[in-house]
C-alpha cells in the first residue's frame, strides 16, 4: 500500500498517476480518479489564486490518506494539490485510489476529497475578468455536511 502526496505549482498527468498505481500490484481491479477543476463562474472568473500552508498541507493530506487506507483495502492512494495561479478549465486537485474492489476505490476517493475540502490548509481567492478581486471563496456548509456521511460507518 503506497500513499503519495504532492503539493505543487505544476499541472499533473492523470494517465501517469493511474499507470503508477495500476503497476503497484497485479491484484488491482479498480482505479478511481477524482479531478477538481477551476470553473469559470459563468464567464466572470479570470483566475484563482490558491494559497496554502507549506508543510502542513502535505502533512494533513497524508494524515487523511492514512485514515482512508485504514478504512478500506487499498493497493495505493495518491493526492496531488496545486497552488498558485490557476485558470478556468485547469486542474486544481487529483485523487487516485486503487483497490481490488470498486466500492473501496470509489469510497476512499470520495472520503479523501470530502476531508481534503474541509481540513487541508488551502484557500482560494478569486480574480475577476474585470480586474477586481472577487475576494476569498467562502467555505460551504455543504462541504461540512459531506463529512457527516462518514461518521456512522
Amino acid at each position, binding site marked *: 500500500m503506497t500513499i503519495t502526496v504532492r503539493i505543487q505549482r505544476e499541472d499533473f498527468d492523470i494517465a501517469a498517476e493511474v499507470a503508477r498505481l495500476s503497476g503497484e500490484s497485479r491484484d488491482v481491479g479498480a482505479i478511481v480518479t477524482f479531478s477538481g477543476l477551476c470553473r469559470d463562474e459563468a464567464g466572470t472568473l479570470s483566475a484563482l489564486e490558491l494559497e496554502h500552508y507549506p508543510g502542513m498541507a502535505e502533512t494533513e493530506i497524508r494524515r487523511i490518506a492514512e485514515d482512508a487506507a485504514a478504512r478500506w483495502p487499498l493497493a495505493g492512494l495518491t493526492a496531488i494539490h496545486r497552488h498558485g495561479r490557476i485558470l478556468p478549465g485547469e486542474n486544481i486537485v487529483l485523487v487516485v485510489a486503487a483497490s481490488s474492489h470498486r466500492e473501496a476505490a470509489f469510497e476512499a476517493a470520495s472520503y479523501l476529497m470530502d476531508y481534503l475540502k474541509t481540513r487541508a490548509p488551502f484557500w482560494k481567492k478569486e480574480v475577476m475578468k474585470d480586474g477586481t478581486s472577487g475576494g*476569498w471563496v467562502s467555505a460551504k456548509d455543504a462541504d461540512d455536511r459531506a463529512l457527516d456521511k462518514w461518521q456512522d460507518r
Partner: protein
Amino acid sequence: MKLVYFAWVRERTGTAEEDATPPEGVATVADLIAWLAGRGPGYEAAFAEPAAIRVAIDQVHVEHDEPIAGAREVALFPPMTGG
C-alpha cells in the same frame, strides 16, 4: 512563539508571520485570539469574529480551548477552501 497567518487573516493583519510573546494569562487559543484582536486596527479586523478563525498548533488542527503552552508555531486562518 511564531505566529503565521493565511488568506484574509494575513491580509488584515498585514503580515504573513511574526514572533510574539503573549503575556501571562494568555493560556488557550481563545485567549491568544482575544489578545491579538487588541494589537491594532488590522488585528481587530482580522480577529473580530473569533468563531471564524481556524487554528493549527505546530501544523495540527486544534480547537479554541486548546492550551498554547509549548507551542512553537501557531497558525491562524479562515475556514479552508481547497480541493
